[in-house]
């Protein structure tokens, strides 16, 4: 009988910890629902399914960005990092400093409310809150920035409580070695703290300026992009940690490459992520040409940790499955628990990451920035990552966490098992149309892409496809939300053994590593080919433009 750290550990948590986690998840799901609603309305408006006053359109777009990019991702990360710290740290079995965690949640909720409400009371600033857009009395924008600042205080406390929890056994004298998951959780919590500090750095000065307590903001863009970059990769790192956890839960498979190697890979996020933020700024005239070249070169390494974790998981799975009799290049995958909705969600999250990741690599090349940077290519590819990869993975973990802390059964597992396909189908339509639109120059953040009949006809057609894709994605995600809320708010509270609706397999085997494991390396090869194809399209389009552009100087 293999160990079930997650399922058993969740139920062994003190009732107070489970109550806290439940509330964090309730608020996270509320923010996901609100963000989904605003995102769907934004896409439908863009597709021309209905009309809206432009101001309301930009308010919806701002709400979507603020709610999903900041609050859904921060709340759910808060809940999951606290949970993993308490459950996976040997010898602790609870949260250390729970009152601080409640304080953190209170700060984040207050920040959430302030950020959202102020969006209705002023010219929408989008999620990045560029202070240069503030006109007239700056008090309301000041409250918007205050919301972000308070949220970051909460985020800082979440990171601190998680690290305190992982360190508690060591301080108590019972020195327990950290598991890979605990180690990765500490790295995750550390990056949350770094993100919170970067958040103070970005939002505190404009808040003080808006309240008349500080000077005008001169270089907002650079500070914002440091935070923005961190916020990109933090959820991605969390995603691969969750894959690591779930694969062990669902199959009993652990890395065949050893704990030490996994720890090094998770730690490498701290090395590879921070220096690569420059690629968000390739169109910024402040950046000299040599810096752009260096930025492109550094960015090549951004995917290394994620690809390595993927390889560790896939090659370990294949190795275990072959030792258990799995055959064929892909046939061994039949041994995986495909009736488990979490397994399906993780598998499609991997696929979506491959698609989104290969598209994103077009944008790390500075020479292609003038072609694509501010076009619909960007939302076209990043929804594969935010929804198709990160959100789908977090939901997969919630399918264990919610029954684990409430004792409620899984809601309609067969239906849940189909939702990742629905969401991926929607993403494929949304993403293909969006990326194609971007390649052909459709700007992002514009509601009337027809430009009064001046723009090519196919632009509007692309946006209709984007709207259809968004509708399919929304149906899938809304069904997930309904199921998760049903599971969360039920009132059973009975001990939750491993739910039979979430079938697992035990691939534990005695002799590992002697069989080939080709799927991981081959899929990396496919990824490189896909990246190359998308990049070639970019270069060829760039060269087809009947324009010669040189120089890039600027002055203050």
């Amino acid at each position: 009988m293999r160990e079930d750290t997650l399922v058993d550990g969740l139920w062994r948590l003190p009732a107070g910890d489970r109550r806290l986690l439940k509330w964090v998840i309730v608020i996270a799901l509320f923010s996901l629902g609100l963000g989904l609603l605003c995102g769907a309305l934004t896409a439908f408006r863009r597709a021309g399914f209905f009309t809206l006053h432009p101001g309301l359109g930009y308010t919806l777009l701002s709400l979507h960005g603020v709610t999903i990019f900041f609050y859904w991702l921060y709340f759910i990360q808060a809940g999951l990092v606290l949970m993993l710290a308490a459950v996976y740290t040997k010898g602790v079995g609870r949260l250390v400093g729970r009152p601080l965690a409640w304080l953190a949640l209170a700060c984040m909720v207050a920040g959430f409310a302030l950020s959202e409400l102020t969006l209705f009371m002023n010219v929408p600033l989008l999620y990045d809150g560029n202070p240069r857009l503030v006109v007239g009395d700056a008090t309301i924008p000041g409250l918007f920035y205050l919301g972000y600042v308070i949220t970051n205080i909460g985020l800082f406390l979440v990171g601190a409580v998680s690290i305190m929890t992982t360190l508690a056994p060591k301080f108590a004298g019972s020195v327990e070695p950290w598991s890979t998951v605990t180690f990765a959780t500490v790295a995750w919590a550390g990056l949350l703290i770094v993100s919170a500090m970067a958040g103070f750095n970005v939002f505190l000065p404009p808040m003080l300026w808006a309240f008349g307590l500080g000077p005008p903001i001169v270089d907002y863009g650079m500070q914002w992009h440091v935070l923005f970059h961190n916020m990109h990769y933090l959820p991605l790192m969390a995603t691969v940690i969750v894959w690591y956890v779930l694969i062990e839960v669902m199959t009993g498979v652990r890395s065949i490459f050893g704990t030490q190697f996994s720890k090094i890979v998770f730690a490498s996020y701290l090395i590879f992520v921070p220096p690569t933020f420059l690629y968000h700024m390739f169109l910024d005239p402040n950046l000299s040409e040599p810096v752009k070249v260096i930025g492109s070169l550094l960015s090549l390494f951004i995917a290394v940790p994620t690809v390595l974790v993927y390889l560790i998981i896939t090659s370990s799975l294949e190795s275990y499955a072959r030792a258990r009799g799995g055959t064929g290049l892909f046939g061994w995958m039949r041994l995986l628990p495909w009736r488990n909705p979490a397994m399906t969600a993780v598998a499609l999250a991997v696929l979506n990451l491959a698609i989104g990741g290969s598209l994103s690599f077009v944008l790390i090349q500075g020479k292609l920035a003038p072609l694509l940077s501010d076009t619909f290519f960007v939302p076209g590819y990043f929804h594969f990552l935010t929804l198709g990869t990160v959100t789908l993975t977090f939901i997969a973990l919630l399918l264990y966490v919610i029954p684990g802390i409430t004792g409620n059964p899984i809601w309609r597992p067969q239906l849940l098992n189909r939702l990742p396909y629905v969401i991926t189908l929607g993403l494929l339509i949304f993403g293909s149309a969006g990326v194609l639109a971007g390649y052909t120059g459709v700007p992002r953040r514009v509601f009337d892409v027809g430009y009064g009949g001046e723009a090519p006809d196919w632009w509007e057609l692309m946006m209709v496809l984007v709207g259809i894709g968004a509708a399919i994605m929304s149906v899938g995600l809304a069904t997930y939300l309904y199921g998760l809320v049903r599971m969360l708010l039920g009132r059973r509270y009975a001990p939750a053994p491993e739910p039979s609706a979430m079938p697992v397999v035990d691939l534990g085997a005695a002799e590992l590593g002697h069989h080939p494991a080709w799927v991981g390396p081959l899929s990396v090869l496919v990824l490189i080919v896909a990246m190359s194809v998308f990049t070639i399209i970019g270069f060829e389009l760039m060269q087809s433009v009947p324009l010669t552009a040189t120089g890039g100087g600027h002055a203050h």
Partner: protein
Amino acid sequence: MRPPHLTTRLGFITFCGFGVVALYGLWAIYGAVPTSLRAQKPLMPGGAMEMGVRDAMDSHMPVEEFQRLVKEFVDTHMLADGSVSPALPERAATNILGAYIGEPVDVFMTARQYNYWPSVLRLERNVPYRFRIMAVDTDHGASIQFKGAAYMIRAPVDHMVEKVLLFKEPGEYPIYCTVYCGLGHDLMKGKIVVE
């Protein structure tokens, strides 16, 4: 004891993990990155070779001064239909085929909520124009549309961006703002007519 298969060795998957770096080779083929320690001239739109970053015209030009230059530019070159057509130098240097080979012709343009000024430019093909663009109220962008692809420039507020652009084919090329600049962002557009 059988040795582990190649694909399950640590060194092999580490090597594969760094595989994405292979994209460098493709970039090098397109001349987008240096391929040796010697200085390279990377490929630019239209297959032209970049001539290097030009120095900014004036490192401390205030917005008011720039707007005065734009007004002077517009007043000097405005046509009857309201469009602006910067004239080539009277004694423009040409090669034996009659193509312009002189210094780039100056073009001044402001980006502001929610238009470009001048909003319609009439230019000649195969003539280099030195665009000097400044956003005067909030950040803006300028995406020149070529019906199938676009070329984008970002214009942060109070910075003068300088680009030398040479249009190789005649046509009407709309300009759309690509940086959200307020509620009228959708409406912000201009046009370049190349004759």
